[in-house]
C-alpha cells in the first residue's frame, strides 16, 4: 500500500494557515447573530439593488439576462473588494503574533485569501444552481476553464494584497484612497455594462488587467464559450507578474513594518 506522508514542518505550516483562516472567519462573523448568512446575503442584496436601478430606473425595461451578468460580475468584484480592503491592515491585525514569534508573513496572506475565496467559491456554486434553475443554463467543456480563470484572478488579487499591505506601512491613509479606487474601479469592469458594446467605444478599457478576468468569466458563464486566448493570456501575464512583484515588494518593504507601525 502506498502511504502519503508529509513532513512535520509542512504539516505544521498547513495547519497554521488553517488556524489563521479559521480565526479570520470567526472574527468576521463574531458577535453577529445572523453570522455567516450575512456573507451570502450581502452580495445578493447588492445585485438586487443594481438590477432594480438599471432595469427599472435607468433603462425602464427588464432584461433577465442582465441579472445573470450582474451576478457573475458582482461575485468577482465582491471578492476583490473584500480581499484587498482587508489586506491593507494585515500587518497591523497580525502584529500580536509578529511581535513575539517569528513567522513567515506569506502564511498570513495565504490564509487571508483562502478565507475570502471560500465566500467566492460558495457564491459560484449558488450562481451555477441559480443559472440552471431559472435560466436552464447547462455548461459543457468550457466550464473546466472557470477554475483556471478564477485561479488567475486569485493570483492577481494576492499580488495586490501584498502591495497594499506593504504600502500601508508608509501611507497610513491608504485605506481612504483605496475606497475611492474601488468605487471608481467598479465602473471600469463589465458588471453593469456590456463589454461587447462598451469596449468598441472605449477600447482603452481593455488595458485594465481586471477586465480580462471579468471578460473571461462572462465568456464562460454567460456566452457558454471558451475564453478568448488573447484576453486570457493578458490576464495570466498580469497575475503572474503582479504576484511576483508584490511578493518581493512585501518581502523587502515590510522588514520595518513593526517599528514603523
Amino acid at each position: 500500500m502506498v502511504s502519503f506522508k508529509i513532513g512535520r514542518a509542512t504539516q505544521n505550516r498547513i495547519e497554521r494557515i488553517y488556524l489563521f483562516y479559521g480565526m479570520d472567519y470567526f472574527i468576521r462573523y463574531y458577535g453577529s447573530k445572523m453570522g455567516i448568512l450575512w456573507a451570502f446575503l450581502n452580495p445578493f442584496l447588492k445585485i438586487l439593488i443594481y438590477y432594480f436601478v438599471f432595469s427599472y430606473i435607468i433603462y425602464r425595461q427588464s432584461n433577465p439576462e442582465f441579472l445573470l451578468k450582474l451576478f457573475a460580475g458582482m461575485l468577482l468584484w465582491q471578492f476583490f473588494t473584500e480581499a484587498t480592503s482587508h489586506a491593507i491592515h494585515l500587518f497591523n491585525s497580525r502584529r500580536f503574533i509578529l511581535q513575539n514569534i517569528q513567522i513567515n508573513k506569506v502564511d498570513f496572506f495565504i490564509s487571508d485569501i483562502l478565507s475570502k475565496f471560500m465566500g467566492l467559491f460558495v457564491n459560484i456554486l449558488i450562481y451555477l444552481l441559480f443559472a440552471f434553475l431559472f435560466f436552464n443554463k447547462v455548461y459543457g467543456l468550457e466550464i473546466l476553464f472557470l477554475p483556471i480563470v478564477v485561479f488567475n484572478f486569485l493570483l492577481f488579487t494576492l499580488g495586490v494584497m501584498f502591495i497594499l499591505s506593504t504600502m500601508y506601512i508608509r501611507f497610513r491613509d491608504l485605506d481612504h484612497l483605496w475606497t475611492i479606487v474601488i468605487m471608481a474601479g467598479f465602473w471600469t469592469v463589465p458588471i453593469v455594462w456590456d463589454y461587447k458594446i462598451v469596449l468598441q467605444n472605449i477600447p482603452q478599457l481593455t488595458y485594465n488587467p481586471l477586465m480580462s478576468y471579468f471578460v473571461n468569466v462572462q465568456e464562460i458563464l454567460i456566452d457558454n464559450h471558451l475564453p478568448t486566448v488573447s484576453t486570457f493570456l493578458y490576464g495570466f501575464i498580469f497575475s503572474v507578474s503582479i504576484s511576483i512583484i508584490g511578493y518581493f515588494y512585501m518581502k523587502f518593504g515590510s522588514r520595518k513594518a513593526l517599528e514603523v507601525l
Partner: protein
Amino acid sequence: MSNEIAISLSNVSKTYELSDRGNSFRERALNIFTSSSVRKIQALHDVNIQIHKGEVFGVIGHNGSGKSTLLQIMNKSIPADRGGKVEYYGTAIRLALGMGFNPQLTARQNIFLNSSVLGLTIREIKEKFDEIVSFAELEDFVDTPVKFYSSGMKSKLMFSIAVNAQADIFLMDEFFGGVGDINFQKKSEELFRKNILQNRTIVIVSHNMSLIKQNCDRVLLLNNGIPVLIGNPEEVIKMYQSL
C-alpha cells in the same frame, strides 16, 4: 548550559529614523515642496554577544538604554542596521506583559494559534491543552475572549504556552515583574529552581535586580545603547548601580 550557541549577535547596531515627511499621502503631498529632515536615533551601538544553549542571560540598564530593542532584534521582529548579523537556533518567543494575543479570540483559540506558530501540530496542542490551561490557572475562562483578561492573566497564559509548546528560547521583557500574582510567581520560580527550563535559553530584561542576581548566568549592561559590560551578575549589577 552547553557550548552550543543559541543566539548569536555580531556587529548589531540599530538606528531609528524619524522623518518629518509624514506617513500618509496627504502629508507627503502637502510637504512636497518643503525639504524634509530625518532625525536619527541610535538605539544600539555595535553589540556582539553569543548566548549558549541553556544559559540564563540578563540584560540590565536604565530606561531607554536599548534593552527592549535588543530583545526585538534577537527575535527578528525588527531588523538590525546593515552589517549586523542576528542568528538564533530553534524557536524563540518574546514574552512581554499582556502581549501576544488577538483580543477578540478566546483563550482556547489563541492557544491553538500561538502553539501552532511555535511549531506544535494540532494533535500535540490537543494533548497539551489541559496542561497549558491548568498551568496558567485559567480553567474557568478558557472560552472567554482574551479582551476580558487582565494583563496578568494574559501573561500567565503566554508563559504557559511558551513552556508547554517547548519553545527553545524565551525572551522575557519585564515579564515577571508584571504578572504580580504570588501563586504564579512561586510557580515560575519553581520552574527555574527545579530546572524544568533546563536546556531552554532564557534572556531576561528586567529592573528587578534580585531576579537577575538569583537566576542569571551572565548579565549584559547597556548604557545609551552601548554595551558597557558582560559578566557575572554581581559584578555587572555593581557597575550598573555606579552609573
